């Protein structure tokens, strides 16, 4: 056998130390976005370079890695990141949520309740929840420093004034440990309640935007809302067409050009488990 072509988990040790220092500060200040010296990765920005760098910095050879993209283990992004770590770290992989010790995810939280022994790594495109309301980094940084989040409530209020309800359905802003408003990445708001009081450590990596943040285990995560317009998650009129689940997040699949539609679980492992098919 040839000598390994990569350092364990691809990144060099100095890069890992830099990322690890950022992760520790991110955990110590829950919800605060720690700047880090994001590296170029062998995949384009937007494909999970932040999540991949965080995963590489926390991975040990004994870990079992699961990678999901919109809940599915078998989509391009998930498959290629999983193969990346098989090649560069030699770790075991799984599609079963309960078998994984590290789960990297794009835009979903698994339906199965996570445990203390698991780490969830989110891929984040835009880490700053205030960015679309205030484009200047200097301003948003000051707003976080002053805990000045009125503009976000105005945005949610304008939703109500215009549509009669809060129209934000994904990347729904939430407050971590009663201090920082954060962007939970573009997960459906259906998943926001799972962020709260979660036994697993949750880490967020934004590669292009060069930010890392964290939600420690058992931390309060409160989705922003109003007393008379409380936070609500999506619901569906019908169960999953494959497994019959009524309490999972469903994707709408267009079946033909006659308008036939099918609603199925977005979490493929959860759905297969329900069907006894795995």
């Amino acid at each position, binding site marked *: 056998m040839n000598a390994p072509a990569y350092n364990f988990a691809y990144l060099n040790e100095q890069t890992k130390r830099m990322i690890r220092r950022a992760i*520790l500060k991110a955990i110590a200040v829950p919800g605060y976005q720690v700047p880090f010296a994001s590296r170029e990765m062998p995949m384009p920005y937007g494909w999970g370079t932040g999540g991949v760098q965080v995963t590489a910095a926390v991975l*040990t050879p004994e870990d079992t890695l699961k990678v999901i993209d919109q809940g599915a283990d078998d989509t391009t992004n998930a498959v290629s990141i999983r193969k990346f770590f098989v090649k560069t770290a030699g770790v075991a992989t799984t599609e079963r949520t309960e078998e994984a010790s590290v789960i990297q995810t794009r835009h979903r939280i698994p339906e199965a309740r996570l445990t203390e022994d698991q780490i969830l790594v989110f891929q984040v495109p835009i880490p700053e929840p205030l960015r679309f309301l205030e484009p200047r980094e200097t301003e948003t940084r000051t707003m976080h420093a002053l805990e000045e989040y009125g503009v976000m409530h105005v945005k949610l209020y304008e939703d109500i004034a215009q549509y009669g309800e809060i129209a934000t359905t994904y990347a729904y802003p939430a407050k971590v440990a009663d201090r920082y408003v954060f962007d939970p990445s573009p997960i459906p708001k259906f998943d926001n309640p799972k962020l709260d009081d979660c036994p697993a*450590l949750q880490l967020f990596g934004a590669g292009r935007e060069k930010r890392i943040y964290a939600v420690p285990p058992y931390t309060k995560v409160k989705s922003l809302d109003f007393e008379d317009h409380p936070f609500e998650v999506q619901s569906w009129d019908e169960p999953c067409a494959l497994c019959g689940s009524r309490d999972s997040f469903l994707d709408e699949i267009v079946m033909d050009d006659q308008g036939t539609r099918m609603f199925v679980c977005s979490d493929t492992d959860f759905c297969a488990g329900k069907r006894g098919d795995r």
Partner: protein
Amino acid sequence: MTERGFSDVAVQSAHAFRAIMQAMARPGRVLELGADIEAPEPLLASTAAIALTLCDFQTPIWLAPELRNDKVTHYLRFHAGAPIMAEPDKAQFLFAEAGPTLPAPDVLMQGTHEYPDRSATLIIQVEGFMPGAVALSGPGIRGSEPFGVTGLSASFWAAMANNHADFPVGIDVIFAAPGRVAALPRSTEIRMLEPA
């Protein structure tokens, strides 16, 4: 001769970091930190593992007088390449033992309200842990967690309670005991259980 560092840097620093990270994520919980590493007296192997996992040329270090000798400074310069500072308020990572030379948290780098991450991490080398001095609560803790450290007085816990009061600025503490690690980030609320 300088002691060697990790026998396998990539793998052992990954294991050490997992323990440090889980300790920081679960304040007051004592976790195993075993590493195949040689450390110069009087550094513990666990302290050395934390230093070589987190420190490098980008991180100024400060050493308390009882930990500062030629062997230790040479070891840290050789393996980590870290600059060793004379003043504690210039250091990103500080190493000390539980005792009178422990620097006060409020003289160390606190970060700013804009950049609370630009703050010091204090690594305290301790003999062991004995729950009972304080009860911890906050992020990372389900309910509350009894905690205590051999050799740390009520004044330390009072100083750390003040450190928490300044959240989000402040320092974070890692406790290194033989083969074990625990942590106390600034986010943790501290309630004294024993009268001073």
